[in-house]
């Protein structure tokens, strides 16, 4: 079923790939909260060798542009994986996961990691930034100067859920990555301040569940919108969000109402 879901998208971003295989974090890995969800996957992936031998050929057959998410624990890790992807024709874009809250971070700054990747690949490089910084626009300017071609905003935020039965964190690592509707206002603020700070295309994400949510991201400067948590709720959400967004962007502002509403006005093309 997952390949069918991927085909409904205009581009597919892979799970993050690292140089060596990773088993990821011990279960449980999912915890729902009041207005979002926490994950503690921990970058489980087969490593770049097996990814290129087994996973990537299948992804390349999907018929949608493939964005490969790259992670690591040092600038050398990022550079090694990007070098391996550079000559893969079917890699549309490399997204640098610079901010996974579920693993230890590389010691280098985001700008240094982008520079290391930039040195080994001519592929479009998107930097996925964390909102958990004093000034995300400053990060945006720094990665832009290091050669990033675009920004992915935002990654999940560190969050923690407590098991009421034990009084202890639900995840073995304590905190996990928080995603879903609660992130939307945080993501919108990041997109707006980065759009004002740098002249780079921005993929906006964080709590997009409807065409109206997607429109909000476009309104503050995103040139594309990415879906995550909503696909866990409705695998076919891309189709409804796309048609809702088309409606949202063609109807006059004052006439915008949810699709399916009985008094919805007809958008003029």
């Amino acid at each position, binding site marked *: *079923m*997952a390949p069918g*879901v991927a085909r409904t998208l205009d581009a597919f971003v892979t799970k993050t790939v690292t140089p060596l295989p990773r088993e*990821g974090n011990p279960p449980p890995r999912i915890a*729902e*909260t009041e207005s979002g*969800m926490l994950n503690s996957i921990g970058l489980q992936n087969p490593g770049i060798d097996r990814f290129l031998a087994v996973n990537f050929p299948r992804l390349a057959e999907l018929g949608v542009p493939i964005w490969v998410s790259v992670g690591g624990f040092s600038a050398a890790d990022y550079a090694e994986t990007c070098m391996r992807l550079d000559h893969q024709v079917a890699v549309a874009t490399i997204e640098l996961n610079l901010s996974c809250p579920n693993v230890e971070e590389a010691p280098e700054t985001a700008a240094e990691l982008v520079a290391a990747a930039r040195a080994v690949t001519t592929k479009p490089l998107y930097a996925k930034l964390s909102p958990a910084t004093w000034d995300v626009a400053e990060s945006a300017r720094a990665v832009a100067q290091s050669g990033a071609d675009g920004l992915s905003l935002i990654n999940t935020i560190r969050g923690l859920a407590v098991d009421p039965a034990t009084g202890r964190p639900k995840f073995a690592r304590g905190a996990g990555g928080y995603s879903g509707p609660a992130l939307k206002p945080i993501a919108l603020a990041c997109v707006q301040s980065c759009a004002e700070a740098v002249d780079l295309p921005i993929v906006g994400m964080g709590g997009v569940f409807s065409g109206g949510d997607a429109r909000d991201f476009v309104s503050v400067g995103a040139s594309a919108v990415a879906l995550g948590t909503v696909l866990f709720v*409705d*695998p076919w959400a891309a189709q409804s969000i796309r048609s809702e967004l088309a409606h949202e962007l063609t109807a006059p502002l004052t006439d915008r109402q949810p699709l399916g509403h009985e008094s919805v006005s007809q958008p003029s093309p």
Partner: protein
Amino acid sequence: MNARRERLPVVANEAVGPYTLLRLERRGLEPGMPGQFFMLEAPGRVLPRPMSLCQAPPGELAFLLEAIGPGTRALSTLDAGDAINVLGPLGNGFRLDVERPLLVAGGIGIAPMPYLLETLGVGVPAVLGFRTHHHSEAARLVPGARVVVEPRLVTELVPEEPHDVLACGPEPMLEAIRALAPHAQLAWEAPMACGYGACYGCVVEREGHLLRLCIDGPVLQGAA
């Protein structure tokens, strides 16, 4: 497998001891194989909840629920006339090419057994364990089953002679069954987000391999 997602009206929510049998109109969804599961929208919650099918009466899909958290509480209080989004059937159910089936369930693990019994044929032996007599009222969903209540354990009812065990229940019970019957088919559970292999949230380790319970399970061969 033809998983679909549709909005299904609630036919009724019926008390079964402390549990609730949520009956939904089937619409365009297939019931799938016993042990397969569906993702049920839990009103007011972000993520859907994975539930194995309990009964498949004509035109309906029925799920047995235990209200243990906000999602299952919301599902347990749905009324006729409400409607929820349902995705499924998902995952791998029980293999039915067994010669001497024995159904074993503990607590809410009884959920997939009525549909499994109906599919295998009446007369298949079943043993059930519950933590209170109130919970054991759910045994009426599996006619002919032998029942124990704590402090007795359901493993006491598993006969000496070899059977093809098909089991669902809490992890300690499944581990005990696996020790008694290494080739048992065991239905496991894990917190899940997507239900279709995308999120890697429901991964468990078995014999050194990382399995996604949603697409590699939820029914796994005990020795696997």
